[in-house]
């Protein structure tokens, strides 16, 4: 199996819990990971299986007793054994080592309870109808081997379960099952999974409220591919950079790649926190993500200035240096090389695309950064608000270096996929942002225009007229 499809030691993974909540973990060998009420498992037990596998946590009776005792003494959940599930919805209550899984997603229990054809006689009196108190349920959770039993008890105690329609019975069971089942899915920390993790943590404001569909279209419109050198401003905590790296190099590093991201940041240091969840080596990131502050980018140090502060020694001179001084020398050398690189990034490169996700005033920022973008290369700008892109578009539209600025919105509308009950989900997250897309172009030069003038004509060509003809 290809390593990038496998659960590997030392890598980060995203765990999807029964509640459809997300958790990011590093898989350290010989450790345990606790999922709170959903149990705990040993990392070693899941290593080597394919990413995407769903594991069920099983406690045998003896474990169960230990758990009951232990929970009284300390908070730590003991690790159970894991079993592979073929489906997140098929939770089995058979023995831990048996493989006779019964797919309960069809909820055969429903048939065994009386159900009403319509919910004509069901009145919603909220929680009163559930005769088990939360305390009783918690007690059951402590006692039960599986969530199944709790649910069976809850159905028994549910005063009007048989008044519900089969449909709502199924819904009820599914919800309860998810609540008490002990399983988890191990996913690769893709940019989408990471974004989902932020959304789940209610922390997506940190990523400028980005949606998966906006992220996807940014990468496509910016024509991100393995061999490009991209200029980027990223106020999403590094998610944009993370997704660009993924599109360029795959989830973990392949050797000898030449694509690069030049990240321009507003503060003294860049915020690319989310890269810590990636499975690239530090060195790989250093090689492919170059960071530079806005000031260094627009006002890079002079070569003379840098050289006046440091001169690399010749090989011979270096040899003669006392070894206790070499450390200091190499520190200075690194600073020197870094300064020269900054000069390079700021002055020499012509970029293959500009990707901006920033809350800075966009007209200034985009106009300035665009001077460094090569002709016929895309400029893509994300914003949480359409109004800021509108302002930007008007500015770009009035500048001949930008072709066809367009504001885009893309929204994903998920469906309930229960056959016989297909419909779009009743509610979904608002937000997700907007995208401005245009092409960097090179306006025709005055003298090129002049060359086109017929000898007989004398009227001079006004700038205005060029403007007027600008294609929409």
């Amino acid at each position, binding site marked *: 199996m290809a390593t990038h499809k496998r659960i590997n030691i030392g890598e980060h993974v995203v765990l999807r819990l029964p509640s459809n909540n997300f958790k990011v973990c590093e898989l350290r060998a010989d450790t345990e990971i606790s999922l709170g009420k959903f149990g705990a498992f040993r990392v070693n037990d899941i290593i080597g299986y394919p990413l995407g596998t769903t594991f069920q946590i099983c406690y045998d009776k003896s474990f169960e007793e230990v758990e009951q005792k232990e929970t009284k003494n300390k908070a730590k959940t003991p690790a159970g054994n894991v079993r592979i599930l073929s489906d997140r919805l098929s939770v089995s209550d058979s023995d831990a080592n048996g493989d006779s899984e019964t797919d309960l997603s069809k909820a055969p229990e429903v048939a065994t309870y009386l159900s009403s054809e319509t919910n004509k006689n069901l009145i919603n009196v909220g929680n009163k109808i559930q005769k088990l108190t939360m305390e009783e349920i918690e007690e059951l959770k402590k006692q039960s081997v599986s969530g199944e039993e709790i649910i069976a008890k809850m159905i028994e105690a549910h005063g009007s379960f048989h008044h519900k329609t089969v449909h709502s019975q199924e819904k009820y069971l599914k919800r309860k099952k998810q609540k008490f089942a002990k399983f988890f899915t191990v996913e690769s920390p893709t940019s989408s999974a990471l974004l989902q993790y932020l959304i789940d943590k209610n922390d997506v404001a940190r990523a400028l409220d980005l949606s998966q569909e906006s992220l996807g279209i940014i990468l496509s419109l910016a024509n991100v591919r393995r061999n490009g050198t991209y200029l980027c401003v990223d106020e999403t905590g590094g998610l944009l950079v993370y997704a660009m790296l993924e599109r360029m190099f795959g989830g973990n590093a392949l050797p000898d790649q030449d694509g690069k991201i030049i990240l321009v940041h507003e503060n003294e240091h860049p915020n690319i926190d989310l890269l810590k969840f990636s499975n690239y080596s530090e060195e790989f990131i250093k090689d492919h993500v170059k960071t530079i502050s806005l000031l260094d980018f627009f006002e890079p140090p002079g070569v003379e200035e840098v050289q006046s502060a440091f001169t690399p020694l010749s090989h011979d001179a270096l040899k003669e240096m006392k070894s206790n001084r070499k450390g200091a020398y190499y520190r200075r050398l690194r600073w020197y090389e870094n300064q020269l690189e900054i000069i390079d990034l700021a002055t020499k490169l012509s970029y293959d695309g500009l990707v901006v996700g920033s809350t800075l005033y966009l007209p200034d920022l985009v106009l300035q950064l665009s001077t460094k973008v090569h002709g016929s290369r895309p400029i893509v700008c994300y914003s949480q608000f359409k109004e800021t892109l509108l302002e930007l578009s008007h500015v770009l539209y009035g500048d001949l270096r930008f072709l066809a600025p367009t504001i885009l919105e893309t929204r994903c509308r998920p469906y309930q996929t229960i056959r016989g009950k297909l419909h779009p989900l009743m509610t979904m997250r608002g937000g997700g942002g907007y995208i401005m897309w245009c092409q960097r172009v090179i306006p025709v030069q005055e003298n090129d*225009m002049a060359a086109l003038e017929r000898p007989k004509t004398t009227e001079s060509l006004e700038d205005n007229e060029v403007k007027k003809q600008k294609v929409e």
Partner: protein
Amino acid sequence: MSHFSQYKDTIQPGDLALAWVSRDNVKPFRIVPGESFNTRYGSFEHNAMIGKPYGSQIAVRTKGSNKFGFIHVLQATPELWTISLPHRTQIVYTPDSSYIIQRLQCTSRSRVIEAGTGSGSFSHAFSRTAGHLFSFEFHEVRYQQAKKEFEDHGLIADGNVTITHRDVCQDGFTIKPTDTTSYYEGSSAHPHVAVTLDADAVFLDLPAPWDAIPHLDEVIMKNAKVILCCFSPCIEQVDKTLEILEKHGWTDVETVEIQGRQYEARRQMVRKLDDALNRLRDVRERKQVGVERRKRMFTKLLNEEDTASEVRPPTEKTQFNPFGKGSRVKEGDTKFQWKEVTKVEAEIKSHTSYLTFASKIGKISRNEEEVLRELQKVRDGKSNN
């Protein structure tokens, strides 16, 4: 030489370029010294383009006029290519294609199946990112057209795109040496061995994906997560797809729609209430004379004097016109105040297709010995530190 996978600095003979005439008129053309690109604004000589950087605006004097015509010469990208296609073609548009690529977790490691090829525009987007794309087209003429296009565009030479003529619903996805396919062309693969597709991403744009899905098990990666997307315009197709997906062990099934909207940046004149009132005041003042006349007339009426002599004086039309009414005002005219507004396209693409995603891991297992070895290595590494 690929026109899609290499970033190019300058326009060179033999290049495939795009001429951007207007938003609705983007045309691919081949740079040939001595030839011209003709538009109704004028004829643009390729020689005037060669050597200029991509993205250059090219001017031409419009025949028999003192005006200039302009085009921009762009290097093609999958998205610009999509724009350049005639609208009557069935295309997977960028809001859909970009989302699908993201959801299929398409990266340089991915081995992607696409059926059918159709206009080929999505194939371009896949080939930009994927490790390998296996595209299938059952319509023979379209297959030939797409194959030629992929060759012209350098996708075949890039080595990561294969196109095969095949009815996948009937015959599955396995590529054999006897097939009509680009696979064995320019490839080092032995022509007597069936191809191992080992796909981990599948995109089905077929009228009956349920006929193709059962064939997938033979060609998808084993012991690894494979993600599938079916692209179907009708909800009944989704329903049938859901049925077959469940039957064939696909999980995490989700259907979505992508709604893309495009906005234009426009300006609306700011028309202040005070200006409107001033204009009405101006009108009223001009009529004031009329009121005086009205009073006189009434007095005369009461006094039974003759009123016929009072000819109604013509009321001049107001000249005070704060909003430039009557004259045609250009949007953004600096003599007026403007508010920036967005305007959605006049005709929006309200529906393209339903996207049904699912994933599958065939035969989950691990190599216990290998895992033990790896664990031991980590432990050794730790104790060495």
